[in-house]
């Protein structure tokens, strides 16, 4: 079983009466000639690493290698505990976890690239927050990860997930699209609703540039992982309510790719523009060395 794009994926879901995760797992098993339990074990390992990386910095804040971030997750967690969250529980926890993962990543901690290291906070942030809010079993979360993987695979195959090629919209944008589709499936939405949510995320993060201060995976990357979480929840909510989308995911992905290739070189992970060249950012770096 294989599919090249979202349309083929949804046709397979329709024909088999399967969820996206079922199709993606079958594809992995068919093309790698591995049994389901081997694949599930490997996914379970990834989920364990994701959970650890989202929780550790809440208790043990760490300073990043580049010195731009550190300690944000603990602050967010403490603020949430006060009961004064302006985001509400699900989003508040989601952004805390996402920023925690980036904090750990920037201090050479163990993370799972999803789809990249710079966007690694979004998928665990969304899934872990949903798991806690709705008491979802780890087993079902693994389904969510498969669904997220399906979206990431389609994006990798037909567009890009590299900030250097397509800007931040291709990294954190795709990460949030992956998370949104997973969230919809976990909340019992249909495959089409899941892919519509992924489409909405790309639409709402369209054009976002990649402009890391000092060229490091720290700032604004960490803030944007939190924004990716919020975008994923917004899109999932829209989709789950029954609102359908004019532009399907395949078309939205092509739009994202086309816009990405037109983003100037200075705004594609080169640290030559955007946030990276704001006076305060340049002052921090002490001039380009």
């Amino acid at each position, binding site marked *: 079983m294989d599919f090249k794009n979202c349309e083929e994926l949804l046709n397979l879901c329709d024909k088999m009466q399967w969820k996206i995760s079922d199709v*993606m797992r079958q594809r*992995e098993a068919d*093309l*790698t000639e591995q049994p389901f339990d081997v*694949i599930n074990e*490997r*996914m379970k*390992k*990834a989920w364990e*690493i994701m959970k650890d990386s989202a929780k550790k910095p809440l208790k043990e804040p760490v300073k*990043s*290698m*580049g010195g731009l971030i550190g300690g944000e997750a603990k602050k967010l967690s403490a603020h949430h505990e006060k009961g004064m969250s302006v985001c509400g529980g699900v989003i508040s926890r989601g952004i805390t976890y996402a920023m925690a993962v980036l904090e*750990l*990543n*920037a*201090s*050479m*901690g*163990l*993370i*799972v*690239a*999803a*789809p*990249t*290291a*710079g966007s*690694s906070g979004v*998928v665990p942030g969304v899934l872990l927050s949903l798991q806690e809010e709705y008491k979802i079993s780890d087993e079902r979360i693994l389904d969510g*990860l*498969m669904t*997220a*993987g*399906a979206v*990431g*695979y389609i994006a*990798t*195959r037909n567009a890009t*997930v*590299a900030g*250097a090629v397509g800007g931040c919209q291709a990294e954190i944008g795709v990460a949030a699209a*992956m998370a949104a589709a997973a969230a919809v499936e976990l909340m019992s939405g249909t495959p089409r609703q899941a892919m519509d949510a992924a489409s909405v995320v790309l639409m709402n993060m369209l054009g976002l540039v990649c402009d890391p201060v*000092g*060229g*490091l*995976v*720290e700032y604004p990357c960490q803030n944007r992982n939190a924004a990716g979480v919020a975008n994923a929840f917004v899109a999932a909510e829209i989709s789950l309510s029954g609102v359908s989308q004019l532009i399907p995911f395949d078309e939205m992905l092509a739009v994202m790719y086309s816009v990405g290739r037109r983003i100037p070189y200075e705004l594609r992970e080169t640290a030559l523009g955007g946030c990276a060249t704001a006076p305060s950012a340049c002052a921090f770096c002490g001039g380009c*060395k």
Partner: protein
Amino acid sequence: MSFISVFDVLGPNMIGPSSSHTAGADAIARIAGKMMNGKLKEVKFILYGSFAKTYRGHGTDKALLGGVMGFGTDDIRIRDSFKIAEERGIKYSFVQGEDDTDMHPNTVDIIMTDSKGTKMSVRGESLGGGKARISRINDVEVDFTGEYASVIVVQRDKPGVVAHITKCLSDRNINVAFMRLFRESKGETAYTIVESDDRLPEDIAVKLRENQNILEVVVIEP
């Protein structure tokens, strides 16, 4: 188009902060480390492009050194690789190379010396998402990824060597995924790189060396 697994998208499991500058650097160095048959005594890394500019903030240096010592992308020992290298008596250094616009932006030359004084140099490129490509071995341009079980054969550029290699492989029922020949110049040293779908049997290196024109055989399992 090569197969994209769900674990290419949700992965690699890795020590941060960057899939290209940390995990990819580790991947290049790990392949280079496996190519050394002797005990590593000294290693020099020449960094180019973005690697040269941002290696400290990305832990590229620690990942490279950890990689040549065999640490995988998710091995927490990468964080302490300077200390571990010192304990193992491995001398290491990092230098910035001359910028060359034709070069891939994340390129490194790894120059390794073993306890007998034999030198070997490997050039690698980090392609993004933790993927790596080896583009040069000892001044010969090559092209392979280390994602497959691979045999690197160093040989004299003479007739019959390639036939010997393919016979050794077919006798052991090994399916070749990719096979390429690279050479410095006619009649000089050449490299054959075979990438296979299957695990390689342990005696393959011994069998390959039976041909007198084969100088060295390196087997790399992914």
